[in-house]
């Protein structure tokens, strides 16, 4: 029972770490990393929802029998990972352009440069 709860604790931990990085870190790259950590947390949550202890992959053809994992959350996670990569790429490319314009990645210095 305790072992079953650990992934959920990890989910909460990951989301909180991500939010912490997002709110308190001044470096744009670290903020992007924060978002990626939140995303990992959410993906882990989806996977954990469908996982049963000792289960096998949900492939019916010549299956050895036994408990199968729920395939839907895995499909959702796969989609979510693909979307996450696209968002990550766009965020990082914008960070590159911000660095070209401002010469810094520090949020405070960028805000000063605005004036």
């Amino acid at each position, binding site marked *: 029972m305790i072992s079953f709860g650990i992934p959920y604790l990890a989910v909460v931990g990951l989301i909180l770490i991500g939010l912490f990085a997002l709110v308190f870190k001044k470096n*744009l790259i670290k903020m992007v990393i924060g*978002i990626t950590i939140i995303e990992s947390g959410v993906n882990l949550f989806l996977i954990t929802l469908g996982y049963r202890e000792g289960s096998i992959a949900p492939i019916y053809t010549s299956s050895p029998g036994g408990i199968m994992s729920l395939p*839907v*959350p895995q499909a959702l996670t796969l989609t979510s990972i693909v979307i996450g990569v696209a*968002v990550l790429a766009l*965020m990082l490319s*914008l960070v590159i352009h*911000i660095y070209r314009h401002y010469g810094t990645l520090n949020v405070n210095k*960028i805000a000063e440069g*605005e004036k």
Partner: protein
Amino acid sequence: MNFLPVPPEYIPVLIVAIPLFGAFLTPIISRINGKVRNIFAISILGITGFLVFWLSTEIFTNNMIYTYVFGGDSNVIGSGNSAYAIRILFEVDSFGIFMAIIAIIVAFIGTLYSYSYMKKETGLDKYYTLILLMTAGMMGMLLTGDLFNFFVFLEITGISSAALVAFWIDKKYAVEAGFKYIIISAIGALFVLLAIALLYGQYNALNMSVLANTITNFNLIDQIILILLFSALAMKAGIVPMHMWLPDAYGRAPASISIMLVGATLSSLYAVFRVIFTLYGKVFLSVSIQTLEFVTTANILGGFIVLLAVLTMLVGVIMALKQNNLKRLIAFAALAEIGYMILGLGIRLAAKSVIYDTEGTAISILNPAYTQAALTGSIFHILNDALDVGLLFLVAGAIYYATKETSLDRMGGLARNMKYTTIFFLIGLFAMSGMPPLNGFASKIIIYESAYQLSPLVSIIAILSSIMLLACFVKVFHSAFLGPKQPHLKNVKEVPKTMLVAMGLIAILIIIIGLFPNLVIENAVKPTVDAILNNTAYISAIIGGA
């Protein structure tokens, strides 16, 4: 009707598929030349718009719900008690198609406007690809009946609009605004996904109808999910205090993109309505006496939303008053307008009350009649706001195109050289600040009236905000269009015809809606409000007779 080459049940999916395929064809088409590509993008949106309008007439007149099931011909798998609605499907009711009309209008006008406005830019094949992708994303958000599908379309809209906000990559503010927008939409979408995962874990379903049918007791998990969904979507809809990205994104993007961002923001607002009234319909809409305990919940949430609405209006107009940059000023005014839209939503929930008999036992739950009016005004205002704000953004873009100036201090006397733009600005100004006989007045008066019945104070703040909006825009009109001609603006010319046509189309719509508001309310807004309030029909369209 027979003149369409496809059966009507395929139209919901075509509305999303046509812009999506158009998006990926655009880079190939632009190999031919720029003109063909622009016309291709405009015609793709034209075809989509035609399909949306056709579907809307069907849905509004018959008050029916269209469904399209991917990879199957039935909404459910199995039958009777073992029927599971696990297929991905589109479910189009009056509310969805009403918002789709708004989204396609802003997308079409934005693209038409881009024809001349963006002519001198490079990288336009990517620009039009992203525009079509964004349209497909918005349409998907509005038409889908599946929550995970909604998340995917939310991300498609977010990614493509962030890239478009940062389209002027050589301007540092544009890049910064784009970065802010992608951060906001990534966080928003992740929390929506977390809420969807919680719903799936709790109820083992992703279909909105099935979930709406199951969420009845509003336990702790339901409350957490509601908070996650509401705050994430409210952030994407730009409601105060999560509005910081909105003026940047609206103000720094090209004008043709600003108007489309209005559409994207309103799509998120649609999702807020959809979550509260459809997903949690059995909690917030029910008037059965068994749901007595939910009345307080509804009142608290409603009061909270009214508070947010008042804050949004006040912050929007106060910030707009001190702006010097024309597009940022309009962006803050657009923020204030969002306040009016959620005001109606808040009133509906806050006014729900219990009627007691003489012994003090509850006998029935009542939604006062004015709450229906509040919702009507709110929905009507979504349409009017998209047009008014859109027109003003296009005018700001036209001024930028002609003068290359964004600051109000460096403009002046433009009315002499740009007479059509001046007329369009005046129309936008009066419509936005709720002056009769234009469309902003028609919806704002309904909101004022119903807000007055809830609390006169809210109504006073709403009217005050409108007056302050008028003050802001009179200032803009005075400093940009009147006054002596600035020496460096001597050779300013009127903008090209396609831009004028785009602005003119919106202006005509504004005037028509302003002169005949009842026509729109009776034929489009009433069915929409009915669809919002009738979540039983939404549920039974999928799982039948529940």
